[in-house]
């Protein structure tokens, strides 16, 4: 039984990394959003599995949040945004897909190396989980820095945060997990609302020198 739990958790966590890679691969926003929904779905599944495995019922709440909020609400909201902003078939990579993937692989390798230095008596489940979680986090960050469009950056951030939740739930018996995931959902809600409010189309990136000259007068 122990072996099975471990394998399933491992599988789910690994597939989360895989989905992150799929996200990196996508350059169409609408497709990206779909993939993110899947990302959240997998997360929900793995959290639920952890809940079962650690028989920690409160984790189901987290799983529920992941499912409802991240897999359904947010993607819908984002879809509406991109439709309204008319950027749903935007292609916007800073660096080419291939390179991004390459870097992503490097990151995963790095996180493995760093994690496997952890002595084995910290139980393997946590250890493997953490390795995956770390790579998800790094991939999310990578996404944020390689995408020019606000929406895809948010998605990057959210997958980063998925990695966090994965880690948190993987950490057996960690208190406050629910609170933390809630807090993060609030954070994300803020971001999405922010985009809504300020019509931030490419706000992340329109902070260019001309704008600064006009607004800041900091330039010589």
């Amino acid at each position, binding site marked *: 039984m122990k072996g099975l739990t471990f394998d399933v958790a491992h599988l789910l966590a690994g597939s989360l990394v895989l989905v992150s890679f799929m996200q990196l691969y996508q350059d169409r926003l609408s497709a990206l959003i779909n993939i993110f929904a899947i990302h959240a779905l997998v997360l929900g599944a793995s959290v639920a599995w952890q809940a079962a495995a650690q028989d920690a019922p409160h984790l189901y709440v987290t799983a529920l949040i992941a499912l409802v909020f991240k897999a359904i609400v947010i993607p819908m909201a984002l879809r509406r945004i991109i439709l309204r902003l008319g950027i749903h078939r935007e292609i916007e990579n800073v660096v080419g897909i291939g390179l991004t993937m390459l870097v992503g692989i490097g990151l995963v390798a790095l996180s493995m190396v760093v994690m496997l230095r952890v002595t084995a*008596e910290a139980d393997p489940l*946590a250890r493997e989980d953490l390795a995956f979680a770390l790579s998800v986090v790094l991939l999310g*960050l990578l996404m944020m820095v390689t995408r020019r469009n606000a929406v895809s950056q948010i998605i990057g951030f959210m997958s980063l945060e998925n990695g966090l939740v994965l880690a948190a739930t993987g950490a057996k*018996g960690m*208190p*406050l997990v629910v609170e933390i995931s809630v807090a993060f959902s609030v954070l994300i809600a803020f971001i999405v609302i922010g985009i809504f409010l300020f019509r931030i189309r490419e706000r992340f990136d329109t902070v260019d020198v001309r704008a600064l000259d006009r607004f800041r007068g900091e330039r010589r």
Partner: protein
Amino acid sequence: MTFDALDAILLIPLCAAALLAVLPDYRVTAILNVLTALLTFLTSVSLFFVHPTSGDYLLVDDLNKVFIVLTTFVAFTTSVFSASYISHEIEIGRLTSNSVRFYHAMYQVLMFAMNLALVANNIGLMWVAIEIATLTTVLMVGIYRTHEALEAAWKYFILGSVGIALALFGTILVYMAARPIIGEGLEAMVWTVLVQHAAKFDPALLNLAFVFLLLGYGTKVGLAPLHAWLPDAHAEGPTPISAVLSGLLLNVALYALLRFKMLLALNPVAIAPGPLMVIMGLISCVFAAFMLYRRRDIKRMFAYSSIEHMGIIVFAFGMGGPLANFAGLLHMTMHSLTKSAIFFAVGHIAQVKGTQKIADLGGLTVTHPVLGWGLVLGVVAIAGAPPLGIFMSEFLVVTSTFARQPWLATALAFGILVAFGGLFLRLGSIAFGEPRGPTGSVHASYVPMFAHFAIVFMAGIHLPPALVAGFENVAKLLG
């Protein structure tokens, strides 16, 4: 549970925030704000006399006592300054009474969050508190709703969130490291417990955790290259918030960093956290020093000087040892007081001149002697000139380092010198030279500013033995 001072410093701001959110008149709310801050301050002072028991969630020890008292005090003086500042903003219509109500509520929430972060005995709780603080400050930075303000708020928000996320990951890792030793559940996140067992934690996990915490909380401290949010947030938000950010929020993040440093220091096998902090501190100090030169916006300039000083402080704590730690604590205190005082002055200056562009300021000592000389005094203090407090701490940092690591000390001295040049270069055109801009009189509250200067001056001349004892004690704790 029994209600004591510890809960009080959390509950007072919280209740006040709720109250302020509903009260309409901004004059009343301003006064209420001041009173609340005063009350919180008095309560925090009482911590020295009544010794509350630290539970699983809250703790009070010598380390955070210092921070709490400093925070509540500066919060109080800032609220006094904020009262006069806000009234002027209302008059010129930059703020509506609604937004002011929101502002005051947020102010108290911020106080609550910072106090919570300081007294939290639980690394998760501390993280939550710091996140709340971040969100509130984001909202307050954006309060003017101008393009620049929103812009700055947004930048702050995004970078802050990422930092927060990294910090959370670090926190989780710490828990993971602690769990095998302490066992599952709340225990494994409680400071007091962690500290006892830190020696047995898995070093690799601790190292990893510290990297994430350094970057996560380092973002809030404003260390280069994670500093990007800081200058704009300072420049575009209302000045009281700039004062609070520089004077308090950075310290709170620093406090978190220190806690984890202590944790790592207790583990013999883990990497020494010192070198990392020293390097980042040095980079921040020198980098910010150079950034001072081409600033056009007075508030942004002082924001960069905050980065520089945070760099010095982190450097000092990174060096470690009783002397350097003492210097770091002293420098942190002095910097909070001085920098917030400078922002008080700058706030009034910006109000009376109607601009915060350095190019449009000039001859302040002629047109507004009190403000002008106040600013000069502040810059002299912040540049580390005697007989003011920062000179003492910089003296201790540099000399104590030079005996151990001459090149590091030389680099630090270089940074300090460059910053000195940058500050005085600008000061010359702001405070002296031919007057520029409107010369109308200003109805300002000079009390907070000069109160701070008085304390800084006294500290530079003579540190009260009690304070010294306290600091030395804390310095020992920090190892």
